[in-house]
């Protein structure tokens, strides 16, 4: 046993060991706060899962608003229920898809496209004669004070998917 066969001295060995163990301990302490800090990045986009296939092919959407009905599961605390949803869907002059909520912004009745013969080319609310233009903006002088809410939408495999409706401010 000669001196040159021991390249690692006792002192060096202890140094390496302590650094290694200390490193592991530091990493153990750091990992939770780090995971928390970058958590939003790791979340799978939650909004995405809210989209529902409403069984309407993109090619069937015309420039005349048509009514689509679908159902979503709603969880309210421990109470689960199916809620029916409705939208008026059409393509605007630029060919972009528009999906409007039919809930009147006055008191919540269900409006329909050309629902009154006296008002062609308008969304009509049967309760208090509220009117909206084709883009969902309320006609001034009728009870509603805000435009119809718009649904988020996307096309996947040629089918229309609708998400949450978003209310709009008065135009």
């Amino acid at each position, binding site marked *: 046993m000669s001196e040159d066969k021991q390249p690692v001295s006792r002192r060096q060995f202890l140094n390496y060991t302590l650094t290694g163990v200390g490193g592991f301990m530091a990493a153990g302490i750091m990992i939770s706060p780090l995971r928390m800090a970058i958590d939003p990045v790791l979340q799978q986009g939650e909004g995405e899962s809210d989209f529902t296939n409403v069984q309407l092919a993109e090619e069937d959407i015309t420039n005349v608003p048509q009514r689509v009905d679908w159902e979503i599961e709603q969880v309210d605390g421990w109470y689960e229920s199916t809620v029916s949803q409705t939208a008026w869907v059409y393509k605007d002059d630029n060919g972009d898809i528009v999906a409007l909520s039919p809930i009147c912004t006055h008191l919540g009745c*269900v409006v329909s496209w050309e629902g009154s013969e006296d008002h062609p080319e308008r969304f009509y609310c*049967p309760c*208090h004669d509220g009117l909206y233009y084709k883009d969902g903006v309320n006609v001034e002088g009728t009870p509603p004070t805000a435009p119809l809410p718009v649904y988020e939408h996307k096309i996947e495999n040629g089918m229309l998917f609708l998400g949450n409706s978003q209310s709009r401010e008065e135009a």
Partner: protein
Amino acid sequence: MKWIKQDLQQYVQAKEYVDTIIIPLLPFQLSNDSNLEKDAFQSEILSVFNRELEKELTGRVLLAPNFHYLTSADKEAEMERVHTWVEDIQTQPFHHVFFVTSDSGWKKVEQSLQGSLIWLPATATESMKASDIQSVIRSQVKEVTELIRSYWKG
């Protein structure tokens, strides 16, 4: 609007817009085993119908709580009780009172009702698929909505 806290909050503020009330008339019994399922099913269907109808016209219509009575009860006597309901309701500015029922017994005493009776024959049956029942109810709602709107215009 329904008889729930949230809707009634809105009702108090928007009274002048809500001039129509719908009162469901629902029979109830537990004494006749052979009719139990059928009767309960009819009552379920009518409740779904009322909910959907209310949803269409929510801004102008108040859906009253169900008026329950015994299937075997005498209609004349029940009529008295209905009158007291209507009396109380009339303290608010309601111009149109509708009764919705699938009990044909009310049809015979319709004249004494202080309001319009909408009698829905029981069209949906237990053997139907859920989706079929839905479409039956949806078309009934559409027609009754039209009927109520014709009262508003008139």
